[in-house]
C-alpha cells in the first residue's frame, strides 16, 4: 500500500529561506539548498519550495535554487509561488522540479491548469488552494471560500467546487491550505480536508496548522489526507522528521521508514 507522505515546505524569498531555523548540524540555515538536503537526508518524502519573492528580477535566482536542489536531492520536489504562465512552468520543470504548483494564477486563469496538464502531464500540475471558513450561502454552499493574493482577496468561489473543477481541468494533486489554521499550530482543518479529500479522486496534501505529530495522525486518518505538509514543526527544531514518522508508524499509519 502507498505510504502517507510527509511533505516539508520551505518559504524562499530572493533565494533565501525566510523562517528562523534551528539546526544542530553545520548548515547554512538561510540556504534553501542546504536545508532541502538536510530534510532529504532526514527522511522527508517530498519537498515544496514556496517562492515568496516579490519582484520579478529575482525569478532567475529561484531557477538557480531549483537547479542546485535537483543535483542534490533524489526525491520529488515541487515549486510554487509566482507561477503564472506555461513558460514559468516549463522553466521550473526543466530546472529539475518534479511538479509545479499554481494558486492565484489558476483562479485568475483556470486554463493554465489545462494547458500545463496537456504540456507536461497531470502529475506535474499541483493546484494550491488557500481557503477560509465563511458563512454557508448560496454562493458558498460548502462554507469554505477560495482566497488569493496570499489570503488578502476573497474570490466568491466555493472551495469544494473549485477542487472538483481543477480536477476536471487536469490538476494531478491538490495542496489544500487552511488560512484559518495556518500558523496556529493547533492542528489542521480536519473538516475541510475530509470534505475535499472525499470529493476528488486526486491526492490531497493537507496544509496549515501542524504543531504536534498527533495533528498529522488526525489529518492522515480521520480527514483522509494523502499527505501532510509541515514547516515550523521541523524548522524550529521542535521535532525531527524521523520522530514524526516513528510516532505515525507506531500508531499504525503506513509511512516510509527506510531512507
Amino acid at each position, binding site marked *: 500500500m502507498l*505510504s502517507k507522505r510527509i511533505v516539508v515546505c520551505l518559504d524562499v524569498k530572493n533565494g533565501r529561506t525566510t523562517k528562523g531555523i534551528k539546526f544542530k548540524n553545520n548548515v547554512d540555515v538561510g540556504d534553501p539548498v542546504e536545508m532541502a538536503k538536510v530534510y532529504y537526508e532526514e527522511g522527508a518524502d517530498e519537498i515544496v519550495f514556496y517562492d515568496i519573492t516579490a519582484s520579478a528580477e529575482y525569478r532567475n535566482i529561484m531557477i538557480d535554487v531549483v537547479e542546485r536542489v535537483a543535483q542534490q536531492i533524489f526525491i520529488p520536489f515541487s515549486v510554487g509561488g509566482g507561477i503564472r504562465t506555461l513558460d514559468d512552468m516549463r522553466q521550473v520543470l526543466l530546472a529539475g522540479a518534479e511538479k509545479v504548483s499554481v494558486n492565484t494564477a489558476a483562479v485568475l486563469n483556470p486554463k493554465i491548469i489545462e494547458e500545463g496538464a496537456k504540456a507536461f502531464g497531470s502529475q506535474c500540475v499541483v493546484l494550491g488552494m488557500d481557503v477560509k471558513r465563511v458563512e454557508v450561502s448560496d454562493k458558498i454552499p460548502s462554507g469554505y471560500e477560495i482566497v488569493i493574493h496570499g489570503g488578502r482577496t476573497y474570490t466568491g468561489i466555493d472551495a469544494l467546487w473549485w477542487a472538483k473543477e481543477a480536477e476536471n481541468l487536469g490538476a494531478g494533486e491538490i495542496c489544500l491550505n487552511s488560512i484559518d489554521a495556518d500558523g496556529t499550530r493547533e492542528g489542521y482543518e480536519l473538516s475541510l480536508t475530509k470534505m475535499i479529500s472525499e470529493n476528488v479522486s486526486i491526492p490531497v496534501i493537507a496544509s496549515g496548522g501542524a504543531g504536534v505529530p498527533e495533528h498529522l495522525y488526525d489529518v492522515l486518518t480521520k480527514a483522509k489526507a494523502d499527505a501532510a505538509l509541515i514547516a515550523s514543526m521541523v524548522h524550529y527544531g521542535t521535532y525531527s522528521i524521523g520522530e514524526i514518522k516513528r510516532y505515525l508508524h507506531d500508531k499504525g499509519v503506513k509511512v516510509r521508514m*527506510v531512507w
Partner: protein
Amino acid sequence: MIAIIDYKAGNLTSVKRALDHLGYESVITSDPQEVLGADRVIFPGVGAAASAMADLKNTGMAEVLKEVYKRNIPLLGICLGTQIIFERSEEGDTECLGILPGTVKAFPRPLIDPQTQDTLKVPHMGWNRVKLIKKHPVFSDIDPQAEFYFVHSYHPVPEYTELIYGITEYGIKFVSVVAHRGVVATQFHPEKSGRPGLKILENFCQWRPYNVK
C-alpha cells in the same frame, strides 16, 4: 558511457543528475551509433505510450532498442520505458516494442483496497514497497522495507512468470520489477526514490550480465 534514450517523454535530466551524483558518465541521446556503442542503456520516461512510441519509430530508436536487447547491452527500463518494452499497451491501444512478451494494462476502476474497502486513487502516486520474489544483481543490498516512488496508471503484465522479479500491492498485486537477460525494468522511478533508488542505479551501472546467449 551510459546512454539515456532521448525521446519526447520528459524526466530525462533527473536520471542524468542521479548518474552525475553517483559519478557515472552519461549522455542523453537519440543517436543510434551512440546508443549501440554505449556500455549500458537507460530507457526512462514519463508520458503517454502512444506519443512515445510514435517518437521512437520516427527517430529509428525503436529498432535501435531491439538491437540493444539482441546484443545484450545492459538495459534499464524506467516507468513508461518499462511499459514500452512489452508488446502492447492498453494506453491508447498502442503497439509497443515487443522486446519482452506481455502487455500493459490499466488499473481496474474502481480500484478497491481489499483491507479497508476504500476506493483507491489512480494514478498510483507516491511511495510503496516492492516485494522481491527472486534475486537479481541490480537489487542486491536493498532493504526489503525500502520504498520507491511511483507515478503511473498502467502496469506491466508479463506473459511468463519467469520475467517477474518484484511485486507491489495497490488494491491489486501488480508487477513492479521485470528482468530477462540484459534487461531489468522497474515501474517505479529509482532516480526519485532516495538512497535505495540510487543504490539500484549504482548496481545497474556495475552490473555485468553474462551466461546469456
